[in-house]
């Protein structure tokens, strides 16, 4: 297990998504020591599960590759995966962090050769594909994962599978005796980059995500479009594998809604416009309907919206869909009223994609330290937060570009604190 060498001049970055990686890298590349703590077994966060970015329609893995290379090459950064910050005490310039390390059951000897996965039989829902595919009980989270090391699912520990995996490993990389442990180390400033999670679509009961197979979320759709995803990049309906050509996007699914999230999640409009490209690129005879309250293509993204709007096979309906029902063939039917001039509709689609919003992934009660948040649970910049600075989507619903911008600024805020420590000590 990685040794953590840290002092009061060290910056702790909590969360290894794109914001956390950025903050860690910007600080480390300016010569600061950084400990980067990530809960999942790999870095990259939600961005690694995206197929393309708006508005360029380029691939997030491209930037991921660069960032991972930067991390691999930078000796200033210590990465702890499967780790969670459970305690933070002290004051700016002199904190003590407590980090819980969950066993991976695989050590740094792992060469990612994959022999363990071949022999393990147990299969589980693949969280990387939001449960739309299965993975083995010994698995590489995804093909770009960093660290490039396998993980043993705790559910196989104590079973024959675990033993088989251990025996298959030629490099003594599997350690079934690993236990959860807690470590403590000092740090001078903390960057809180715990990001977001998709709002639980099952809670949006009128849309029947929990009842209808052909109602999925935008994050699931993103996996579906990815050639490395559960359907090999084919846009099909979960119920019967039929090509999904007539697709509805429902905006503000959970956002701008007192029943769910008060806030506007900012990115969902652009995400649906982007995903519309996936559909029209996949099928010549595609039909896309976007149901919206306001299309929030912010500032320079307006032309991206106008381009989609100009497509013959895409229609926009200013309406929050009232509810979804299904017909005998499992086709979802969106019901509602086009508010521009009051036209009722009952439109049958092959597939409905809910543009579910973003909520902070850490709730107030789970913060190890007092922190100022707003009604939505996002961290507000406040002097009361001391040497703890939010970065990225922990501070608001942000797109990747804005999140990275914000994280870069957060790195400087943390550097200012540790520079004061260095000044005082030096």
């Amino acid at each position, binding site marked *: 297990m990685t040794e953590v060498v840290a002092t009061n001049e060290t910056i702790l970055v909590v969360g290894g998504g794109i914001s956390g990686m950025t903050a860690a890298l910007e600080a480390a590349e*300016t*010569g600061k020591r950084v400990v980067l703590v990530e809960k999942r077994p790999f870095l990259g966060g939600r961005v690694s599960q995206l197929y393309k*970015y708006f508005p360029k329609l380029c*691939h997030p*893995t*491209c*930037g991921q*590759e*660069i*960032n991972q*290379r*930067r991390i*691999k*090459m*930078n000796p200033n950064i210590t990465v702890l995966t499967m780790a969670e910050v459970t305690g933070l005490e002290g004051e700016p310039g002199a904190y003590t962090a407590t980090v819980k390390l969950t066993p991976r059951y695989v050590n740094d000897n792992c*060469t*990612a*050769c994959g022999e363990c996965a071949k022999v393990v039989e147990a299969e589980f829902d693949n969280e990387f594909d939001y449960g739309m595919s299965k993975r083995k009980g010994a698995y590489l989270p995804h*093909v*770009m994962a960093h660290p*490039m090391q396998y993980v043993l699912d705790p559910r196989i520990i104590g079973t024959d599978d675990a033993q088989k995996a251990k025996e298959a490993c030629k*490099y003594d990389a599997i350690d079934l005796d690993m236990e959860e442990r807690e470590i403590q180390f000092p740090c001078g400033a903390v960057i809180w980059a715990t990001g977001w999670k998709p709002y639980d679509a099952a809670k949006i009961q009128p849309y029947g995500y929990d009842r209808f197979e052909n109602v999925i979320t935008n994050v699931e759709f993103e996996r579906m479009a*990815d050639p*490395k995803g559960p359907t090999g990049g084919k846009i099909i309906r979960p119920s019967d594998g039929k090509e999904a050509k007539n697709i509805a996007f429902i905006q503000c699914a959970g956002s*701008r809604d007192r029943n769910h999230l*008060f*806030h*506007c999640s*900012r990115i969902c409009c652009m995400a649906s416009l982007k995903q519309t490209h996936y559909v029209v690129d996949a099928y010549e005879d595609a039909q896309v309907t976007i149901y919206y309250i*306001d299309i*929030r293509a*912010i*500032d*320079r*993204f*307006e032309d991206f919206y106008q381009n989609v709007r100009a497509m013959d096979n895409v229609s926009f309906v*200013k309406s929050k869909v009232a509810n979804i029902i299904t017909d005998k063939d499992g086709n979802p039917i969106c019901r509602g009223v086009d508010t*521009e*001039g*009051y036209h009722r509709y009952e439109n049958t689609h092959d597939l409905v994609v809910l543009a579910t919003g973003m909520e902070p992934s850490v709730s*107030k009660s789970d913060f190890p330290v007092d922190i100022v948040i*707003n*009604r*939505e649970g*996002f961290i507000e910049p406040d002097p009361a937060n001391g040497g703890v600075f939010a970065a990225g989507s922990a501070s*608001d*619903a*942000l797109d*990747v*570009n*804005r999140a*990275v*911008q*914000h994280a870069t*600024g957060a790195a*400087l*805020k943390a*550097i200012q604190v540790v*520079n004061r420590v260095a*000044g005082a000590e030096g």
Partner: protein
Amino acid sequence: MSDEKKFAAFICTGCGIGDRLDVKQLEMTATRDGKMQSCQTHEMLCSKEGVAMIQNAIDNDGANHIMIAACSRRAKVEAFHFPTVAMSRANLREGVIWARPEGDEHQETTQEMADDYIRMACAEVRFMEVPEPSGEQGEVKNILIVGGGVSGMTAALEAAAAGFHCHIVEKEGQLGGWAAKWHKRIPFRAAPEGTPNSLTAHLPEPVDNDVAELIAQVEANDKITVHLNARVTRTSGAPGRFSADITTESGQTVTENYGAIIQASGWKPFDIDSLPEYGHQHPDVVTNVELEELARQAGDGPIKRPSDGKEVKSVAFVQNAGQAADKEGYLPYHSGIGDLVSIKQALYFKAQNGEDCDTTILYNNLRTPGAAGEDFYRSGQQKMVIFTKGEVNEVTSGGNGATVKFKDKILDEDVELAVDLVVLDIGMVPNSGPDPYAANESIEDMSDEDQQAAKEEMASETAVTVESILNLDYRQGTDLPQLKWGFTDSHFICFPYETRRTGIYACGPVRRPMDIKQAQDDATGAAMKAIQAAVHAASGEAVHPRVGDLSYPRFRKEGCTQCKRCTVECPFGAINEDEERYPQFNESRCRRCGTCMGACPVRVISFANYSIDTVGQQLKNVEIPDEFEEKPRILVLACENDAYPALDQAAMSGQEISPWARVIPVRCLGSVSLSWITDSMNSGYDGVIMMGCKRGDDYQCHFVRGSTMAAERMRKVGDTLQTLNLEPDRVVVHEVAITDIERAPRLIKEMEEVIERVGLSPFKF
């Protein structure tokens, strides 16, 4: 380090390499063909023991050039980290055994592949040197900030708080920019934790303008020097040694050195007078910028209409006036914050003119994003601001007040609304200097004569209309290149501070339209990057994306023909020409992509660890079987950031890669020298594939134009092939994304088919 090169090879036999390949043969290849002075194997080279073995060879045997044959150069980077020596890596795992099926029938070709990769890596390292910093720059903890608005001031305060000195250059007579003129500002924060959803809940309201406080902080900060009524009249040098002339209106000039530069030159309001349908010519039709002035003049009292001074009792806000439309004379984008501004201003009226002042906002798509935005929308509604989706056709006036003609999209009817005052939500236009590439890019498709004419016309136009902000004395123009519509934003989503002029970062509304909150966040990020650029320049390291790279371009002066291709093609405008018209590389401006190397027709440009030879010798050291063996050879030059990882991942996910392919990662396709192509053709390769990033408007090349340059250069390769009597199909350039895991191997397969069709190369000797 001693001058003598001492070569050592290390071969890993783990991960199946030892099972699948004849390791003895590999060792022999390394020592005999690869001329390595020693060769050691280890069953797990990345283990502590394996790494110790290598370290021992370096420390005790004096090995200073090492070749590691194991997994991909992308794997086990932390383990194989030997910064003091030159190192090459032969990719036997992802590149060979994982890319090829098992079985006797494949054994021969698989072993050949592995042997070739060993030869290639040995050849590469033989021609490599350990890069060392040039020492051309020192540590300069001084930052130049152009623009004294909120963005510039924030950048200065944040950089100062990290220990850097800052000079702010402001063209006006006072700090603060537009924001200082606002009556109040949009709230930054959403409703606090615990706020109930009730009609009377306290939601965010317009906040008192606090720019004056910011100005006071700047003025009180002893690390910040402010130059008012001043402009930057000349900027030269490079990160770590920028020199700028700051000239005041009175003509006095001071010159100072800077480590890095921040351009926070802000924005200007769109000229709505150019669109008479909005009726701005009438006194009671004002822009949202002008309304701020009216509101300030009123103090906390009622806002009066300009025509006759009557207290305003009804206001209509026309959203997106002249914005977000594909119409002649309109801005194709919108400010993104106009709806928040109008809510703020409607609330001025509710507060100052009384609750019975009616305010109607005619929006298109109401854009109040995020948590604070949506709460502010609710806040406006609570105070009875009326919102409707309306398409405004015309604003007219008969003198006092004005009438808005619009279509109410909800009620589906045409309306004429008479009000005391109409406020136009106008767009934000970036305050950029002239785009160094504007002329070239838009006229690329024209004929040569038209191009010349267009260039001249544009030159004369830009000369009168756009003033330079930075006055860079760069070979490629005076200012930062622009992305779209005059904004000097980064092209990359993951890297918002990517800049095409190293060490110079834009922030605030010159990048994209934004409000005070965003501008302050952005300025903080830009300050971070500026500080980092200064730090990197001091240590001689490259900045993003090849962070930490100490190599830099050098050239053999005696061979240089002064053709200027390098100075013209450098995507970062790094290269100037000196008085004798030789290239001046300014390495801290350089991003180490090698485009200059690829551009140079006489092959005089090189990097310590990346040169014509480090690649050229690799391809020459591949064994080319004679034609009777019927084993073609396909050279693949793959961009190390996208295509190479795609091939790696293809192997990892079980895809086969052609046994005829020999893949060489390159920094960028822009660095590919034509000589490599002709050399490979002459050596008997049957095909060459270049895999680079997407080009065009949505280019994905991290060195901006490298991929484009390669494609352009290769267009001319056809002629060369023809003189050699070779089919042009033998050399292709593909755009390959990192996600092309299935496609990348398929492209190689397609080349196999081409070779099958046109036959093997006649140049096999």
